[in-house]
């Protein structure tokens, strides 16, 4: 018997990298370059509805002519028009406030699950995850049933004599917040639970033995140890909510739109592809820092970065 021979990295392990790499470049990176390019184009009554169209067959001259036709008009428009600015602000406000509400509701829930009997925990986690597997659209739709003028919520409130006349819950910011908090709650609870569950709770007993009151031990031991989970949960909610379309479209009013709705309208109703692209690029720039922070947390959680 010869000594075991180290087998060097084989050729088809390169394929394992190459196949998903090429797919992501083709369907993730290249599309962004195209969005960037079209955001610098002008709207036109043509197919596709923008100029200039890059004509690679025309060679270097074509490329030069293409470059001179690029314009920052779309960015100037979204920078100067009140409509777009207020959309961005509204999106940030909705995302910020609902992330705060989600933390307030999600933390006690995650903590309660993490401190429940060990045998019960997988079941409770599954109960939190299960609604996430059922359709997002259905869960938003379920709230229309409840919130509409002659819906269940008004019936219950009137039966309890809390209100005298039905309240218009739908088409309001309240409805958007209810929809967002409801839809994103699992995204907040799961990372929080993952970090709370790992805490060695004998630390709390040690604190208690040394005379620390329970609230103080919680504040000085549990909270700092769960900060990473809280950050992951907050980003996992904040980033997608900023670009949310379905929830404000179905539950919100028509007076002020979130940026996802504005992009949708520019694209589908106004057929203004360059402005829609510029909105997307600006939104991405706005979310770049949170996305990078999230990626770092994700890599750390998975053990890539020490």
């Amino acid at each position: 018997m010869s000594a075991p021979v180290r087998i060097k990295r084989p050729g088809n392990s390169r394929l394992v990298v190459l196949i998903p790499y090429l797919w992501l470049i083709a369907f993730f990176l290249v599309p962004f370059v195209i969005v960037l390019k079209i955001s610098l184009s002008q709207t036109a009554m043509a197919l596709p509805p923008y100029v200039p169209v890059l004509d690679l067959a025309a060679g270097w001259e074509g490329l030069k002519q293409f470059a001179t036709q690029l314009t920052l008009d779309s960015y100037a428009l979204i920078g100067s028009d009140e409509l777009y600015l207020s959309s961005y602000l509204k999106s940030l406000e909705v995302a910020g406030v609902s992330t705060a509400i989600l933390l307030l509701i999600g933390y006690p829930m995650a903590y309660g699950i993490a401190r429940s009997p060990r045998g019960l925990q997988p079941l409770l986690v599954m109960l939190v995850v299960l609604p996430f597997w059922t359709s997002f659209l259905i869960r938003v739709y379920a709230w229309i049933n409840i919130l509409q003028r002659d819906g269940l919520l008004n019936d219950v409130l009137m039966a309890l004599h809390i209100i005298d006349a039905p309240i218009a819950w739908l088409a309001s910011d309240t409805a958007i917040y209810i929809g967002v908090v409801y839809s994103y709650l699992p995204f907040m609870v799961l990372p929080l639970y993952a970090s709370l569950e790992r805490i060695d709770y004998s630390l709390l007993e040690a604190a208690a033995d040394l005379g620390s009151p329970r609230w103080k031990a919680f504040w000085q031991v549990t909270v700092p140890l769960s900060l990473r989970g809280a950050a992951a949960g907050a980003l996992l909610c904040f980033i997608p909510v900023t670009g949310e379309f379905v929830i404000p479209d179905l539950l919100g009013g028509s007076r002020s739109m979130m940026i996802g709705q504005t992009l949708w309208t520019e694209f589908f109703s106004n057929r203004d592809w360059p402005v829609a692209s510029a909105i997307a690029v600006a939104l991405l720039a706005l979310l770049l820092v949170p996305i990078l922070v999230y990626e770092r947390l994700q890599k750390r959680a998975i053990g890539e970065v020490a």
Partner: protein
Amino acid sequence: MQRTSGFNVVSVALGLAFLYLPIVILVIYSFNASRLVTVWGGWSLEWYRQLLRDQAILDAAWMSLRIGALSATAATVLGTFAAVALTRSGRFRGRLLFSGMAYAPLVMPEVITGLSLLLLFVAAGVDRGFWTVTAAHTTLTMCFVTVIVQSRLIGFDRSLEEAAMDLGCPPFKTFLTVTLPLIAPAVIAGWMLAFSLSLDDLVIASFTTGPGATTLPIRIYSQVRLGVKPEINAICTIIITVVAVGTIASSLAAKRGAVRRAREGLGVQV
């Protein structure tokens, strides 16, 4: 020591009630005999009967199932490869870009992904329809598979793979006969998640679809915009039931598999 305080029980119970009450109400209303959604007219299966006659909804459901199955399968292969590449390949050129692209779709707002993929398909001159939605969903869901499979790959003992390779097993065969069975639960969970995300997606499908490729969420959305309809409650109830049964069954199967493997593992050691 675990201690269950009243506060903990109440916060978990309230949270779960908040998560489930709207769904339960939706399910109950789907059996309502009254056409008016808000008036209770007794139990009835009327809306399920109407649903079976609604060819447009049935076609959309079939379309969604086909797109879901195909894109989930492609996403599982690509996502598993990506996970293996990220955990096993060490450093390679362009790794930073690769890992960045592998996680970004997780949080990317859907309107951005949808718009950019549509513009890609237009620029490439591809007819939009079944295949473009499938490719878009594959891109969206593969990152979820990557994350699930990667966390499993990190958790298990590499020495098994090394032993097989030391004994002369070719790397690809090692992957198929040693690695894949070990990560199978995560791969299956990844497929199911990808499938349900594809079935669920409205925004990206709306951007990338074309004539003749209406998916179920697009169909439901166009109906919902016109107001609440009992038929929609019925189709939603069917989807919820299928998903709930599938999730519970697969997690029970995974648990049983884990118990069996644990026993076999003990047997080997003895």
